[in-house]
């Protein structure tokens, strides 16, 4: 038989190895000085650990029963409320975020946007040869129409 595994040694020292395995292990230890020495060391450690005894704590039975009784009287939260709890929390978070975004947006953007003077707009468009833009501006469109009308009047004269 090969040497005892550490786990077997611990169980043998603890006296918890079940009979078939125990008799085989004891037979091996009887003829193996190395495993006998290991078992002695394991046994000493096992005994040493037994030195630390712990005094019994207070009897908590009455206190626990009393607290448990009080907890049992508190109506439990219904399962359906527990289930929709996360959904409600998520919905509240969305509404809160939307509200904050709305208020912050109103606060950040000026209520009246000051547009550049039309003349500047037109001059910039002409400088860039953007006739189309000039046409699209209200002033450009009016002048174009008036210009056309002027050309027509000149032709009639």
């Amino acid at each position, binding site marked *: 038989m090969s040497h005892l595994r*550490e*786990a077997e040694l*611990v169980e043998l020292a*603890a006296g*918890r190895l079940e009979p078939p395995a125990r008799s085989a292990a004891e037979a091996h230890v009887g003829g193996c000085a190395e495993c006998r020495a290991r078992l002695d*060391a*394991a046994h*000493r*450690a*096992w*005994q*040493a*650990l*037994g*030195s*630390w*005894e*712990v*005094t*019994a*704590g*207070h*009897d*908590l*039975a*009455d*206190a*626990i*029963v009393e*607290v*448990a*009784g009080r*907890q*049992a009287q508190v109506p439990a939260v219904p399962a359906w409320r527990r289930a929709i709890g996360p959904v409600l929390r998520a919905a509240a978070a969305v509404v809160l975020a939307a509200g904050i975004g709305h208020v912050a947006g109103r606060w950040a953007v000026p209520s009246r946007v000051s547009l550049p003077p039309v003349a500047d707009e037109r001059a910039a468009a002409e400088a860039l040869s953007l006739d189309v833009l000039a046409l699209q501006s209200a002033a450009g469109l009016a002048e174009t129409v008036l210009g056309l009308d002027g050309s027509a009047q000149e032709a009639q004269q």
Partner: protein
Amino acid sequence: MSEEAAGDEHLMSRVAAGDMGALGELVRRHQGAVGSFAFRMLGRRDAADDVVQEAFLHVHRAARRYRPEAKFTTWLYSIVVNLCRDVARRAQRAPVQLDDEPGPSTASATDPLVARERAERVRRALGALPERQRTAILLHRYQELSHREIAQATGWSESAVESLIVRAYATLRQELADLKE
């Protein structure tokens, strides 16, 4: 199933039916064992008492859902182990002074001072182990749980438990080698 285990199952069925006397009986049966485990894990009597109370309140709340797939004590230890881990994690963030209670002297020791010193050496050696090794060794040595029961109580595999126990005992053999019987 042992007579005590069958008694635990019966008490649990009574607790589920609202019998608070059965809860008290369960507490009286097991508070000593789980309390000493919690004390050895946490090193503080008040913290151990809190764990015991919270564990049995959990037992009470879960009584209707309880199914005896494992021994009651194994299930109880799984609750206690988790509570001790929570307390230990909180204590890491806010370290506390351990109670000066290495335990009473052993019956075989003639000199109480020597016995007290031995107990203190053991406590320090166990306290120096990594948390998983300490948990496994305490459940194995003092609570007499098998590897399988420790695996069920901790959620670790049986092979992991065996490995933790072997490493822990190897360390303890070295640390306590000079202690005389």
